[in-house]
């Protein structure tokens, strides 16, 4: 497995669909104001196809366990 990605760059990846700061202007759910645990739990459910999705299941499979924890922590801290 390649090196784990920078947590800051991981969150930058989410903004392109979920909006800057996780404030979505349209149909994709907003991500601001969540706890790290809930984000990580949802991402793991997407990764194992336990949660219905059109695209997040394909995206979540691209991240390691450590990256999921890191992006969840970073989002919970910065996307209020």
């Amino acid at each position, binding site marked *: 497995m390649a090196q784990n990605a920078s947590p800051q760059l991981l969150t930058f990846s989410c903004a392109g669909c979920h909006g800057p700061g996780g404030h979505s202007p349209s149909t994709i759910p907003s991500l601001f104001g969540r706890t790290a645990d809930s984000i990580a739990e949802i991402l793991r459910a997407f990764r194992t196809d336990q949660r219905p999705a059109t695209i997040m299941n394909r*995206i979540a499979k691209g991240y390691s366990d450590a990256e999921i924890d890191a992006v969840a922590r970073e989002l919970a801290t910065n996307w209020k």
Partner: protein
Amino acid sequence: MVSKLSRRRFTKLAGAVGASSAFGLSACATMEPPKARVVVIGGGFGGATAAKYVRAIDPAIHVTLVEPGRTFVTCPFSNYVLAGFKTINDITHNYNALAGMHGARVVHDTASGIDPAKKAVTLAGGETLQYDKLIVAPGIDFRWGAIDGYTEAAAEIMPHAWRAGPQTLLLRRQLEAMADGGLVIMSVPANPFRCPPGPYERAAMIAHYLKGNKPRSKILILDAKDNFSKQPLFQDGWKAVYGDMIEWVPLSKDGKVTRAIPGEMTVVSEFGQNHKGAVVNVIPPQFAGAIARNAGLANQTGWCPVNQTTFESTIHKDIHVIGDACLAGAMPKSGFAANSQGKVAALSAVNAINGRPTAAPTYVNTCYSLIAPDYGISVTDVYRITDQGIAPTPNAGGISPRQADRAQRTGEARYAEGWYAAMSQDIWDA
């Protein structure tokens, strides 16, 4: 004020380092000399992202964005203008947020030269800009004449509409003027080119318009390659929604167009077949925007080689090249990819300025396409650095499932809208 709130949210998002000036005046508005100067050439998907993110990550850095246009019309969603359910207005953005709340200096001019030794950019208007780091994002230029007879003048008769704006509207007017039963021809280039699924989405969107208005018409796609992005999903979708309206001719069936005769609305294939259309859309072969090539940033391919971790040019130091103009391994030439690269280049430039180590990169791309307004498909990948350069993460990403219920397709169409709105905010609108 909304702007102040958004600015604060955004600064938090980016994890700003120089918090002191985050809510105050931009570096350029104060008397203090800036910590460093970053110049960005091009205010499209890559460049406008990079300019905004440099300011957000470290507001003590002075950023100048050079872009000739006062507004920017996106290629994404321009196929829906052709289809008739979006307007040019819907896909037009400006630089007010970037120049206002994000405190970048936006200069509406064209960069005419780069001097890597003197670290200076000259503008057509006469100004010279000194930089510590330069980010170059000029997008594509067309290789006029690569298809014999397809010149800039020919594009006024057989539009490419591969840069959005007047060309999009020209093609739309031609479709409107065409009689029922007319033949629309599309000529599609070999890889690499801007937006690999774009031509096939365009065929569907033109078909959507024709089905409702000129149902006896046909679309003929002449392709210089034998397979294309999301091919099974497109072919299933075309058939399901438009029956036999769209015909695709691959390279191996003499699909490559080598000559255009605008006066006769005819294109000629490699082995000499003439195809005459009522409307002819020629998407010509491409290379990196002129400013990048003229500055010696491109190699023999016509595209710019870059370090895959930082997007710094492997030819000239302290110059990053991002977006369609660069060679980014397996990443497609898409707006989403340019946005992703813009963020990596911004952080890399800021880290270098601040003497910090390079961050381990991660890239993402998603290309949504519509078969019909309520029928969406996508391809997505999370990219990493491997021994082969930037490559998709194994066992992840990929295209929408081929066997899927309507909910998947309508859902993806709705999320395509959501993506466009979020991406526009991430780059220009907020």
